[in-house]
């Protein structure tokens, strides 16, 4: 019983992180129709911000606080310099952000070397949860990601900004006709999505090995989550992330990690094929 509970917590860990990454990607895509191929790199950079904070003595936990802000600012920069020049052409946006991802990866290689780095665990030890002993830091990760997800939902469903954003997602032209400054919203939304990725990377840093190539490992599952879950609303990608995360963990545990990717992918493309608008959404999306 305890093993099951622990396994459940492990799965939740992964799913929550995936949700965070997918949400950032989905928000940007839903609002701006922009596919950010560098999203994984934003996540990676979030982790490296924590590394820098650790190396300069600032500490890991402050680093985790700082990372989403730093990456959000980076997102603003990227949006202004790059995205706003290409966002009307979907294919070129993919290529441009891909070029950006190459650039970001290489900058990290130049700055930190191609190898991997480790960040110490700021909350070592076990915590007691309902009679189960579970790594304290992993509980912390879950709390942080849950908080971030809820905060994002609050932003989108309880604030005027969120109301405007949802309108732009629903019908960009009409939203503009109502006086909503869509370009300003684009900027903030991109920053927000990037910040979420940065947070995901930052909070994961102490338990993974940071290396410049780690972005891709999350980009593909995040995309698959969005495609499976659909883009009908801000919530549907989370359904996709759950499916992807659950499948990945189940297969990893019962078969092997090697098979996991393949199975996830196969399940994903079958679902996408038969539910082109997503399993959770009813609105068709044109890519």
């Amino acid at each position, binding site marked *: 019983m305890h093993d099951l509970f622990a396994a459940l917590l492990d799965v939740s860990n992964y799913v929550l992180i995936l949700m965070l990454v997918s949400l950032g990607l989905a928000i940007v895509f839903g609002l701006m129709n922009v596919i950010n191929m560098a999203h994984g790199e934003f996540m990676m950079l979030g982790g490296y911000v924590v590394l820098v904070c650790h190396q300069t003595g600032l500490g890991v936990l402050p680093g985790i606080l700082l990372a989403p802000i730093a990456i959000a600012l980076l997102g603003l920069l990227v949006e202004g310099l790059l995205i706003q020049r290409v966002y009307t052409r979907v294919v070129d946006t993919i290529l441009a952000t891909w070029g950006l991802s190459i650039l970001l990866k290489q900058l990290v290689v130049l700055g930190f070397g191609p190898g991997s780095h480790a960040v110490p665990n700021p909350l070592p030890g076990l915590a007691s949860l309902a009679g189960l002993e579970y790594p304290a830091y992993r509980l912390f990760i879950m709390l942080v990601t849950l908080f971030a997800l809820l905060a994002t939902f609050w932003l989108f469903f309880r604030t005027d900004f969120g109301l*405007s954003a949802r309108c732009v997602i*629903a*019908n960009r032209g009409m939203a*503009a*006709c*109502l*006086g*909503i*400054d869509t370009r300003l919203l684009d900027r903030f939304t991109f920053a927000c999505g990037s910040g979420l990725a940065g947070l995901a990377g930052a909070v994961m840093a102490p338990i993974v090995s940071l290396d410049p190539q780690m972005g891709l490992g999350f980009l593909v599952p995040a995309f698959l989550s969005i495609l499976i879950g659909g883009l009908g609303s801000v919530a549907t990608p989370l359904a996709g992330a759950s499916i992807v995360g659950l499948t990945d963990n189940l297969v990893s545990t019962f078969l092997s990690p090697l098979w996991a990717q393949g199975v996830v992918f196969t399940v994903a493309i079958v679902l996408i094929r038969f539910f082109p608008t997503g399993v959770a959404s009813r609105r068709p999306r044109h890519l």
Partner: protein
Amino acid sequence: MTDRVLLSLRGVFAGYGSGMVLQGMSLTLAPGERVGILGRNGAGKTTLMRSIMGLLPIKAGTICIDGESVAAWPTHAIARSGLAYLPQGRELFAALSIEDNLRVAGLAAHTPVARRVGGEGSVRSGLNLEAIWDLFGWMRSRRTERAGQLSGGQQQQLALARALIAHPRLLLLDEPFEGVQPSIVEETRQILREVCTKHQIALMIAEQDAESVLGLCGRVVLMERGMVVLDRPSETVQANPTLLEEFLGI
């Protein structure tokens, strides 16, 4: 009526892709004036309105609001300068409630409107939520219902309410009475007449059917192949029904 011009188009060419829909469109509108734009399908009525709102970039010509050229302005700036657009198909936010649909429209209206043009320095009279509930009685009690669940006529009125809440100086309505039951059409026309007169709102209605427009607008403009072919006061058109028949082939 002053001889100030609220909206003026001169030699506007606009279209989609390589095709040109508007071919030298020229039109002026005075503050508070009501004009009906008539024309067959494909004459360019919708393209005209989309061009004015900045949803479609124009290929040539000028569009001026209060004398200032707005052809390069982003849509939201044009909207904030006092233009409200009710497109064909209404385009409500179906997943949002009635109240939210109205609120989001009010958001931009209450921001310090960066109106570069003085607009006679007039304070746009308040058309806040309360006034809207008064105008459209049924909405108040159903304000939390999703817009997508309303009937055609109710959606039409919501779309109109949404346009009005933003204190517009000019209302662009694209075939507003299409697919709406006659009783609601009449009710809406009444409301339009009342509100536009009371708040000095100019009106541009695009319609295929002359009847619904003649009683409401003082002026009728007939479009064909992206140009104005007839521009007469409504009384003239009402007195000579053959005028329209010639062009519309009714």
